């Protein structure tokens, strides 16, 4: 038997933002890449081999192919305008086959990239996605004519339902076998553009690089030590204009359309300054107050935490542990030295026991809250609402030194500030990123914390405490943003964004996304919770816990007018914000104290994981500054609030 030769074919999935690349990636590889209905979801670049069926894995010849698929970040063209483009450009230059995903409802935009890719001259295949959406909007596309004009095979698809995915896979995996008869070949190169690229062909190793140099790509020119001529920008404009004209002609010839639909109407209402703002307020109220506060943190958590974990699970565990080790509840100071056996029992199943309280926190509280938040967020994302919110918020966010797109990390921060800090990459420059990161660290609570806070606030009679908390945060958010906009040098408000159509979320994607994100979150939280609880339980039996609480007591009781036990919540909040917040649930507080502690906890320092990401995304100095500013802001504001506003709440 001849030895099996392994060959790897690099396939790059390329397209404009929000055209369905990640969904196609899921279908072909069986791996879930985070999919949303807002531009720019693919930030961490996903790579995986295409999943082959059993018979496909056994080729007749002795060559075994693997097809490595890369889900590149969405771009409107390739060059070196920003990090996403650079990443995508490099994957394209490296690829053996390009799979260009285009949206059937925005061909005049998408085909610009297609023409640019065709001019590179690599084997290419087009996936015409969203043909159901096009039909719904009465857009007719002459696919045969378009395919002929481009010289590229087009596969019509509805990626979310899987339609067209099998044909796409067959096209890709048959390509190397068929060789000359392969339907995947380079598209028609535009003669007008080619004439402008030709002078650079001898300069580079590949056609793609020659094209990019002709288009004034500084990085590639540097790579070849080539000094871009003075008229480089003019040449680029010339090439871009030719492409634009060719695309417009293609669209006139191949696309016809008529009429508008209801979903377009809804999309318009959401962009109306008045009705859009009313809707935004209503959505925020329903999502935070009604859904997360009343339903998840109230009904659902009560059911699981009280009925199951407190009444059944914890007594059961205590019962088992107490058969071996005694569990102490009082006089815990020095327990470790005086009675090690009962110290171990208390460590395992006492009030802060790692088998009792930690498990209850993780699965009775954290899990429902995080699930609830991510489900709500998934609906907002998949419906296409977030980009509209970004448009509404752009004016305001520009005044705070950012741009409309910052709404996405700011809302994601309500899930997990750590993950949100990573998405600040969506923003344009250092100034916008620093401000978004600071506001995330200062004024955005993460999901479990948000849930606990919503639960505490909705527990008090009336909506007033909730409004006070909300408005105070808005004010702090605004003041810090405006101040930073003045103080941090640099430019902001660079906002050009295409707005995806409103879509009815698919249950399947909502479920997958909520599940994946919750799992990632819980995996990270589980370890952190056990460590945090272990430290606390150990401190308790070793007699340190009381000493720490006493040390912070003046700060809590004198400055914030809160009971001393709240101090523990804040200390734990430094490790994990949600873990700290859960502690608040067990302390009896007056309405004024509840609002004060909710505010202080919201403003208080970002957790250790967030701090680490901030250091990675920016630097140590920014991270430490944000951390220290949180201390000052949280306690300074809490002190003022407890004295002057809190008294009105009783």
């Amino acid at each position, binding site marked *: 038997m001849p030895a099996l030769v392994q060959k790897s074919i690099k396939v790059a999935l390329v397209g404009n933002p929000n055209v369905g690349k990640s969904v196609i990636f899921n279908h072909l590889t069986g791996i879930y890449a985070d999919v949303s209905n807002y531009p720019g979801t693919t930030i961490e670049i996903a790579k995986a081999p295409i999943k082959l069926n059993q018979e496909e894995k056994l080729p007749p010849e002795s060559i075994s192919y693997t097809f490595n698929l890369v889900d590149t970040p969405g771009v*409107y*063209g390739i060059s070196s*305008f920003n990090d996403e483009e650079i990443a995508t450009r490099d994957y394209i230059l490296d690829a053996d086959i390009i799979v260009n995903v285009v949206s059937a*409802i*925005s*061909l*005049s*935009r998408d085909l*610009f*990239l297609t023409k640019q890719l065709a001019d590179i001259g690599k084997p290419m295949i087009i996936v015409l996605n969203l043909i159901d959406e096009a039909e719904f*909007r009465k*857009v007719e596309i002459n696919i045969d004519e378009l395919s002929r004009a481009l010289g590229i095979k087009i596969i019509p698809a509805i990626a979310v339902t899987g339609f067209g995915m099998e044909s796409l896979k067959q096209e890709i995996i048959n390509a190397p076998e068929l060789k000359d008869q392969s339907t995947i070949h380079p598209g028609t190169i535009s003669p007008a553009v080619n004439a402008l690229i030709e002078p650079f062909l001898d300069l580079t190793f590949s056609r793609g690089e020659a094209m990019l140099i002709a288009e004034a790509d500084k990085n590639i020119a540097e790579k070849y030590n080539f000094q871009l001529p003075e008229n480089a*920008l003019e040449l*680029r*404009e010339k090439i*871009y*204009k030719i492409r*634009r004209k060719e*695309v417009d002609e293609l*669209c006139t010839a191949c*696309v016809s*359309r008529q009429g508008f639909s209801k979903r377009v109407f809804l*999309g*318009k209402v959401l*962009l*109306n*300054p008045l009705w*859009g703002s009313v809707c935004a307020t209503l959505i925020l109220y329903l999502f935070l107050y009604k859904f997360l506060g009343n339903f998840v943190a109230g009904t659902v958590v009560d059911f699981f935490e009280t009925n199951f974990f407190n009444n059944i699970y914890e007594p059961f565990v205590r019962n088992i542990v107490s058969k071996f080790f005694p569990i102490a509840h009082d006089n815990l100071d020095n327990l470790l030295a005086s009675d090690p056996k009962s110290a171990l029992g208390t460590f395992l199943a006492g009030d802060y026991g790692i088998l009792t309280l930690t498990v209850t926190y993780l699965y009775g509280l954290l899990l429902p809250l995080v699930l609830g938040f991510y489900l709500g967020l998934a609906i907002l994302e998949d419906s296409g609402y977030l*980009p509209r919110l*970004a*448009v*509404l918020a*752009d*004016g*305001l966010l*520009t005044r705070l030194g950012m*741009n*409309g797109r910052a709404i996405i990390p700011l809302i994601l921060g309500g899930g997990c500030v750590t993950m949100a800090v990573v998405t600040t990459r969506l923003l344009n420059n250092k100034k916008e990123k620093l401000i978004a990161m600071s506001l995330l660290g200062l004024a955005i609570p993460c999901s479990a914390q948000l849930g606990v806070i919503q639960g505490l606030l909705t527990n008090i009679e009336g909506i007033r405490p909730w409004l006070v908390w909300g408005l105070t945060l808005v004010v702090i958010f605004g003041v810090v943003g405006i101040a930073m906009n003045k103080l941090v040098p640099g430019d902001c*408000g*660079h*906002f*050009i*964004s*295409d*707005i995806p159509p409103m879509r009815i979320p698919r249950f399947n994607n909502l479920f997958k996304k909520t599940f994946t994100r919750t799992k990632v979150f819980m995996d990270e939280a589980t370890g952190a919770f056990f460590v945090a609880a272990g430290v606390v339980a150990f401190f308790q039996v070793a007699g340190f816990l009381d000493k720490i609480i006493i040390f912070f007591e003046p700060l809590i009781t004198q400055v914030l007018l809160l009971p001393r036990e709240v101090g523990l919540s804040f200390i734990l909040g430094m490790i994990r914000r949600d873990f700290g917040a859960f502690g608040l649930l067990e302390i009896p507080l007056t309405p004024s104290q509840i609002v004060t502690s909710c505010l202080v906890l919201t403003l208080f320092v970002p957790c250790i994981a967030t701090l680490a990401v901030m250091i990675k995304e920016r630097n140590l100095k920014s991270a430490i500054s944000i951390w220290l500013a949180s201390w000052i802001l949280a306690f300074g504001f809490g002190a003022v609030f407890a004295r002057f506003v809190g008294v009105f709440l009783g």
Partner: protein
Amino acid sequence: MKKTLSSLKLNKIKPSKRFLIHKIPEDIKYELIRLGISEGDNLLCVAKIPFGPVVLQKDLQEIAIGGKFASLIEVSQEV
């Protein structure tokens, strides 16, 4: 009928009006060409957020341009 054109900045366009793009500043020209908007295009204003972005429609696609950029783009409108 003879048409008269009035020249103004993009951020002054009212919703549901059609207009012609005249001049786009160099630094955002390329970004807009790629999105399908270039000088000479005839477009529709879908929405305008006060002190905020202008939303344009080209074919079936909607594009928002922040208020800051919109104030730099010259357009003309039929009166």
